[in-house]
């Protein structure tokens, strides 16, 4: 055995040493405990592929200093980074990390600020909802392990994000929270019983020994609450103090600790009041509200995470050697995959052979199956319904449409709208003010009635509720966002909902947004003795030879069996098609047809195509881009809401006019260059209007960016490139109207929440300061206040 090499570092394994690691059920020999720890870390993090892909051996495990730092250093390896790091520019890298130990907004702030101070870290955004941090850094100045180590120094655990480990972590934390809640609940119920006995005893008279016994019993049952159930508050308050930033956990901990110390003192003394009942109840209610709030937030994050889970882990690769089942991680662009009916597509790609219907509902909200033919694009995560398809992989992992949707969603959740930022700042000041006021009130009561000072200070600390203030906005935003996503509307920027609620004018960026984007035959006019049907048949037969986009609508109108054979078909570029049908030569095209002069009238907004034979014109066809079925519904909906509507298009003005007339939009401007659109937009904005722009999101980035809020049609694969604030994944226009409704509702719920939080505190603080609230009543009051905020927000779902 002495010449065997360590599976991890490649060094010879000394005689008599027996370290093993199981990788995919194969035991591997290792040289030392250090290597074992590192290898275990790699395997446990689901990164065992590192061993398959690595090109160089790492340093021996124990040669690096602390074991923790060493585990982190693994994440610098390019092979390992491949699965979760995105190159966002030259030397610029971006990764999503899960942070364990985030309990409050201060943790988010602490991490963000600390990391930003490091040289080379370009941006940090921590999502409070999903506990994910998006970090981008310059790899020349800093490496990922240093960033992870810094996070650990702060007392948090950072892991690279992959969807499965996030779910496992969440489940672990959820169970821990439930255990804390259970402890607090059991103890609160029982301590309350003792408290009733004590109150009754104080009223009717009770032996000092009996009262002492009950106090001791209460103390015993409160111990697990203080030392186990209330732990999250201590760690949150501690991290807040470390960052020299106050949050609501600080007064909570002051209240808990002082109530406990005071009660223990009175118990030892055998006289005076004890507050064990208030401690247990306060902890129970706080934990309960937090659990509810967390569940609400997580459900909205789940919507995004479920998307990632759509993509399967294994794929069937087809090669010359036959079919082979391979992990999705091993796929590379260009691979040929077989996707059977009922299976989900493992990667983005194009159909190489076969035809089938595909269910993209979870991505777009569109419940009808979408037909896929050779050459169609397919999206990872959508489900093949009818028959087997062979596809060529074009995008995998981080580069799929699915991943980019999740990335955008994450980004939006991390960005806080103005109102939420304000609330965060205010609740910081609020806590300072609260501590100051408490001190003053405490001193005043000390001077007036020293006996009651302690109880009143306690009630004051407990009754105030800055958490309702800081929850008011995020709870509503998260609920609205997840509701809209289920309807196929993806919010990609934090401010989008807020702005959407204020929109006064909707601008359609181009006619393609309102139309299907394919020309359809609108009218046929026979000009000679041949009837319209015959002309159409001739036209379609001729167009068989053409690949011009205008050929499709003709072929769509005539059954394939009715097409006539055409001989000597000639496709003259820019002119049209000519060919012999049943012995006669026919011409079809737009102008200058076989020497005939065609007088085209362009005022109808139609595209005209003419059919002729050698001697005369036979028919005129009018083609136009058809409106989307639901365009009219959207326009009516917006008008009913008092929105002003405009079309700013680069298309032919007559076409634009025609579409505007059909829909009832008065302000239609055609023939605009992007610069003209921008100028028109700025003119509207100068007039004080809040403009929402609808476009296809890909070609008009600057114009979309100039609008206060932009919405892009994001069907299929375009979504990855879209640059707008909102993406309409479903391509169902009426959802735009729905999104407007939801945004207004969300804003009004946010305002209600703020009003409630402010009013509650304005009333509760003076009442408590006057000594009218006992500590246990204060505990109920503050919990009810945050509960109302969260439940109100959940109405949006």
């Amino acid at each position: 055995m002495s010449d065997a090499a360590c599976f991890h570092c490649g060094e010879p394994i000394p005689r008599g040493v027996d370290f093993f690691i199981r990788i995919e059920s194969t035991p591997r020999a290792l040289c030392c405990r250090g290597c074992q720890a590192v290898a275990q870390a790699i395997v446990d993090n689901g990164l065992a592929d590192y061993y398959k892909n690595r090109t160089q051996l790492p340093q021996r495990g124990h040669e690096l200093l602390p074991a923790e730092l060493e585990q982190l250093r693994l994440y610098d390896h390019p092979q390992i980074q491949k699965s979760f790091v995105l190159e966002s520019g030259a030397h610029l890298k971006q990764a999503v990390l899960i942070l364990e130990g985030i309990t409050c907004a201060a943790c988010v702030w602490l991490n963000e600020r600390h990391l930003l101070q490091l040289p080379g870290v370009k941006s940090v955004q921590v999502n409070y909802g999903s506990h994910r941090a998006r970090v981008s850094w310059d790899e020349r100045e800093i490496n990922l392990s240093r960033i992870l180590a810094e996070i650990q120094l702060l007392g948090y655990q950072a892991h690279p994000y992959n969807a499965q480990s996030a779910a496992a972590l969440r489940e672990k934390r959820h169970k821990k929270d439930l255990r804390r809640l259970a402890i607090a609940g059991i103890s609160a119920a029982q301590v309350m019983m003792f408290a009733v006995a004590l109150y009754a005893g104080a009223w009717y008279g009770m032996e000092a020994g009996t009262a002492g016994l009950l106090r001791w019993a209460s103390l015993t049952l409160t111990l697990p609450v203080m030392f186990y159930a209330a732990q999250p508050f201590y760690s949150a308050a501690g991290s807040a103090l470390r960052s020299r930033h106050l949050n609501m956990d600080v007064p909570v901990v002051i209240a808990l600790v002082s109530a406990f110390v005071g009660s223990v003192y009175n118990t030892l003394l055998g006289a005076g009041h004890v507050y064990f009942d208030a401690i247990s109840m306060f902890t129970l209610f706080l934990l309960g509200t937090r659990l509810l709030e967390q569940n609400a937030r997580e459900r909205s994050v789940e919507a995004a995470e479920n998307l990632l889970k759509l993509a399967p882990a294994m794929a069937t690769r087809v090669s010359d050697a036959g079919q082979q089942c391979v992990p999705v991680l091993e796929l590379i662009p260009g691979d040929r995959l077989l996707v059977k009916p009922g299976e989900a597509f493992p990667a983005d790609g194009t159909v190489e052979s076969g035809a089938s219907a595909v269910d993209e509902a979870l991505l777009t909200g569109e419940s009808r199956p979408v037909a896929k033919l050779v050459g169609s694009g397919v999206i990872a995560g959508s489900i093949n319904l009818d028959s087997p398809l062979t596809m060529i992989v074009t995008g995998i992992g981080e580069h799929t449409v699915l991943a980019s949707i999740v990335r955008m969603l994450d980004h939006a959740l991390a960005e806080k709208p103005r109102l939420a930022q304000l609330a965060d700042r205010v609740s910081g000041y609020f806590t300072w003010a609260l501590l100051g006021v408490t001190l003053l009130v405490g001193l005043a009561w000390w001077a007036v009635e020293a006996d009651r000072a302690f109880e009143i200070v306690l009630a004051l600390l407990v009754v105030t509720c800055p958490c309702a203030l800081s929850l008011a906005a995020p709870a509503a935003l998260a609920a609205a966002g997840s509701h809209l996503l289920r309807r196929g509307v993806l919010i990609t920027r934090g401010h989008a909902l807020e702005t959407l609620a204020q929109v006064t004018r909707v601008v359609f960026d181009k006619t393609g947004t309102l139309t299907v984007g394919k020309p359809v035959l609108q009218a046929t006019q026979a000009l000679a003795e041949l009837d319209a049907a015959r002309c159409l048949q001739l036209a379609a037969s001729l167009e068989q030879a053409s690949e011009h986009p205008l050929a499709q609508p003709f072929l769509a109108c005539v059954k394939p069996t009715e097409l006539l054979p055409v001989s000597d078909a000639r496709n003259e570029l820019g002119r049209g098609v000519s060919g012999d049908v049943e012995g006669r030569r026919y011409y079809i095209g737009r102008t200058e047809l076989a020497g005939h002069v065609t007088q085209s009238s362009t005022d109808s907004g139609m595209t005209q195509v003419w059919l002729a034979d050698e001697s005369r014109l036979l028919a005129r066809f009018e083609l136009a881009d058809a409106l989307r079925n639901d365009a009219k519904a959207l326009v009516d909906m917006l008008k009913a809401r008092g929105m002003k509507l405009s079309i700013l298009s680069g298309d032919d003005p007559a076409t634009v006019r025609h579409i505007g007339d059909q829909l009832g939009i008065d302000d239609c401007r055609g023939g605009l260059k992007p610069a003209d659109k921008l100028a028109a937009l700025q003119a509207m904005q100068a007039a004080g209007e809040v403009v929402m722009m609808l476009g296809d999101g890909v070609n008009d980035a600057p114009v979309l960016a100039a609008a206060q809020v932009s919405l892009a049609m994001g069907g299929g694969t375009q979504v990855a490139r879209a640059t707008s604030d909102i993406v309409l994944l479903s391509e169902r226009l009426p959802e735009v109207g729905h999104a407007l409704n939801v945004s207004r509702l969300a804003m009004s719920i946010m305002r209600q929440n703020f009003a409630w939080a402010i009013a509650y505190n304005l009333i509760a603080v003076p009442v408590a300061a006057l000594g009218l609230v006992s500590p246990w009543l204060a505990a109920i009051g503050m919990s009810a206040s945050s509960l109302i905020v969260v439940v109100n927000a959940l109405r949006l779902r």
Partner: protein
Amino acid sequence: MTSTLIFLLGLTCIFLLLIGLGIFWAIKSGQFEDMEGPSQRILMDDDDPLLPRRRVETDALKKAP
């Protein structure tokens, strides 16, 4: 009086311990993971063949061949 009280308090603590263990077990076995599923599941008729009326029918079916 006091000794009775001590006995009762001790009993309380034992009961609380048992309750706590029970809840911890329930949490560990994942009974709180899905709060909606079980309430729906009660409506599923997977116990249909056990109902007396059905039982007669199923028995009859069994005897038929």
